[in-house]
């Protein structure tokens, strides 16, 4: 029997049987929506009027000068409604859920950005929204918990396991298994069983399409390096998707190195993990020698996940994308650098991509043009950064 949704040896549908008909139904509904002009028009309208697309490309010359690169441009997903790229997929999937006749949405969230985006999309479309969130993340991201509740979502605390994103995914899947006939699972990253990685990539690919066209129009050529942070990898796959067929463009994914990959306290699944199965997909997974999923560490809650999207695993295996990791300390420094040089406070997640610029300079030299996906803004991280600075 052939397995659908494979990226080489990665991907698949490692799910309880109860959900197999649901993912088949979802795949069919997604393909139908993709081919439906009215659906696409409605999505385009909401992306424009409600999300605020297209987002600008910002030429960041002071940052470029500081890190010693010829040109650095930032794709400003931080300027979208709700403040991160998560909204692109949340609104797309919520529209799809409504089209499928599902009135109830469940979602998981780590940093809270996907939860807020899902809650906002559900409010807009009049859908019931339940968001699962680990209690550790609720503590770290308290303002986002309040935002979700303001938007009418029910936030359910997850006490199991490490009380972070992976446990919230487990609980959302359990809810989905139980209520599959009425409920749509609005997964936030390019992870999980097929068709989620393909679907999230499709809804996030607008980042790459806009960026490529904007860069071409402004510069006349293509960037030499495109860099994005990778947790599950949704902003990165959306950005990379437009450049995969451009052999002259180097692609770099930056994972969360935490306290350093050698310390074991990190969330760099490709750089520091092994092939395994987690949350319905076969990919690189942080696990111990017995196949138990390891607890992760990152200063950024949004990258604090022990797996990575299967397409990233495949792009690593083929060598099309180079995956590296940057530490908490490097990300915190980059957070301050971007704030001071460009007047932009980034989220800690894309601060990992900013932190990689110095390494790009070392690797590829000063005559390099770099496109950075600035996936979200840093308001949610102010408290974390304040505490980290006090501790230094």
């Amino acid at each position, binding site marked *: *029997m052939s397995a659908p949704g494979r990226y080489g040896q990665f991907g698949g*549908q*490692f799910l309880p*049987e109860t959900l197999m008909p649901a993912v088949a139904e979802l795949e069919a509904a997604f393909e139908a929506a993709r081919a439906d002009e009215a659906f696409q028009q409605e999505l385009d309208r909401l992306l424009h009027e409600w999300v605020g697309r297209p987002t600008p490309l910002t030429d960041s010359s002071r940052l470029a000068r500081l890190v010693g690169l010829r040109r650095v441009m930032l794709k400003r997903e931080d300027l979208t409604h709700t403040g991160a790229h998560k909204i692109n997929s949340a609104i797309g999937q919520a529209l799809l859920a409504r089209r499928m006749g599902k009135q109830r949405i469940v979602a998981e969230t780590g940093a809270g950005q996907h939860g807020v985006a899902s809650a906002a999309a559900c409010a807009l479309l009049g859908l019931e929204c339940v968001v699962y969130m680990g209690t550790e993340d609720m503590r770290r991201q308290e303002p986002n918990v309040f935002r979700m509740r303001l938007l009418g979502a029910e936030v359910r605390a997850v006490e199991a396991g490490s009380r972070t994103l992976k446990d919230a995914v487990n609980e959302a899947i*359990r809810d989905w*298994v139980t209520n*599959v006939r009425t409920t749509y699972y609005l997964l936030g990253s390019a992870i999980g069983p097929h068709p989620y990685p393909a679907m999230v990539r499709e809804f996030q690919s607008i980042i790459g399409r806009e960026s490529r066209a904007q860069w071409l129009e402004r510069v006349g050529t293509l960037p030499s390096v495109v860099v994005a942070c990778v947790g599950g990898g949704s902003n990165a796959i959306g950005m990379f998707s437009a450049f995969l067929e451009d052999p002259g463009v180097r692609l770099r994914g930056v994972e969360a190195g935490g306290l350093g990959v050698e310390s074991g306290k990190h969330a760099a699944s490709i750089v520091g993990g092994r092939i395994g199965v987690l949350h319905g997909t076969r990919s690189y997974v942080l696990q111990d020698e*017995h*196949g*138990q999923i390891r607890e992760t560490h990152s200063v950024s809650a949004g990258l604090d996940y022990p797996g990575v999207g299967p397409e990233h695993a495949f792009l690593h295996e083929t060598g099309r994308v180079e995956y590296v990791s940057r530490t908490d300390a490097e990300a915190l420094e980059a957070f301050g650098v971007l704030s001071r040089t460009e007047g932009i406070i980034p989220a800690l997640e894309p601060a990992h991509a900013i932190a990689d610029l110095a390494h790009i300079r070392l690797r590829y030299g000063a005559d390099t043009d770099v496109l950075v996906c600035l996936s979200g803004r840093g308001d949610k991280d102010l408290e974390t950064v304040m505490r980290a600075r006090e501790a230094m």
Partner: protein
Amino acid sequence: MSVAVSGALRLERAFARARTERRLAVAVYLTVGYPDRASTGSLLRAALDGGADVLELGVPFSDPLADGTTVQRASEAALRNGVTLADCLSEAAAVVRDRDAPVLFMGYTNPFMRYGFERFATDGAHAGTAGVIVPDMPAEESSELESALGPAGLLRIDLYAPTTPDERLAKLLPNAHGFVYCVSLTGVTGARRALASDVAEFVGRVRRHTALPIVVGFGISSPEHVAALRGTADGVAVGSAAIDVVTSARPERRAAELREFVASLAVAGRP
């Protein structure tokens, strides 16, 4: 020692015996290493003493997404106790050797994959076990595991759910071996007050596509549930309710109360 009879044959004989006696076969699931490593052997034997026909040894996993609270907590405790798949294999080998019991493993894909499917098949056959139930591995993803288990004579028991459409049953059931595991409800494992109302209709749909024994599991919690499944199923699988009995008993009474609980289920399955 060499195992004269294969685990799969023990399983077949257990269902044949229950059928001859016109009663439901009882499969009992226990998480290995819960509540502690030392008591697993005595709990498994207590289940057999109470009349369990089949043992399902739960392999603990950090992220059991098809399980409710009871099995989640038992798995977390077992992992804190340091239980590995190798430990599960030794517990299985011991109970097969002592009691000639049909033993299956139930656990998630990743620990089996990390151990190595072929190595697991070899060790599982050597221990005399019958096979595996992997709740996060549907038929579409099973070819690697199947090709490792086949030569070793181990079975992969598929799960079927009330949401499984007839066309899918017709496609998958001809490839089933050993028995057919029907998930009684749309949801995760865990004790429930009542049986799902559509379980007889669901088992009837499955029965049209297979002559194998049908075991109903997930949510089966009491003798009343078992009695209600007589005439519908060929067997029941009870996990969370058995673990709940162990959890709520005083330490020195755990084995005795589990034996009594399993006996009450076995009696309820008799004519």
